[in-house]
């Protein structure tokens, strides 16, 4: 039973790694930040699945901290680091 959860966690980890190319491709800095945010959510999901699979409830606390502080990096990016004009076209 618990192996099912571990495999789901591995699939989520793989899809999180699959999102990494967006960081390099850009085109804007916000896209890189979006990929980082997706990774944050994915790690919350991975931790929850692991907590359930291994029956270690304190892993939920780590997930709680992650989801609590998920916004800090994004907000500090938007408010402090995204100011310069960039190429604004999408990559279609």
């Amino acid at each position, binding site marked *: 039973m618990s192996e099912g959860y571990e495999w789901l966690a591995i699939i989520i980890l793989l*899809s999180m790694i699959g999102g990494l190319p967006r960081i390099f491709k850009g085109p804007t800095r*916000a896209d890189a930040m979006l990929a980082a945010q997706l990774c944050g959510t994915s790690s919350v999901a991975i931790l929850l*699945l692991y907590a359930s699979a291994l029956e270690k409830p304190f892993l*939920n606390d780590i997930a709680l901290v992650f989801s*609590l502080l998920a*916004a800090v990096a994004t907000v500090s990016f938007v408010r402090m680091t995204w100011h310069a004009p960039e190429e*604004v076209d999408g990559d279609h």
Partner: protein
Amino acid sequence: MVIIDYVSLILAGIGTIFFMASTLGLLSFPDVYSRLHALTKADNVGLGFIILGIALRSQEVSELMKLLLIWVLAIISSCSSCYLIARAACRMGIKPWKRP
């Protein structure tokens, strides 16, 4: 109990599918705004399904409340940070993509 275990695994599997769809959207959508849209699917629906699946198996009320808190926090932080990104993108003059 066995049926509940299977239902929980299936729900977590649906959540995982949403995560994969979100990655796909992040990679293939044409501009920031549509990628934001793809991202929030993982945050709200994907994580929601996974938490629903896990919550079915939890034994204590306190664990249940903690899981609910995690989901609510993930939703509010994803929606407000996505709003902030979209607003900043709009101010910087990034035009939404239109079908050519």
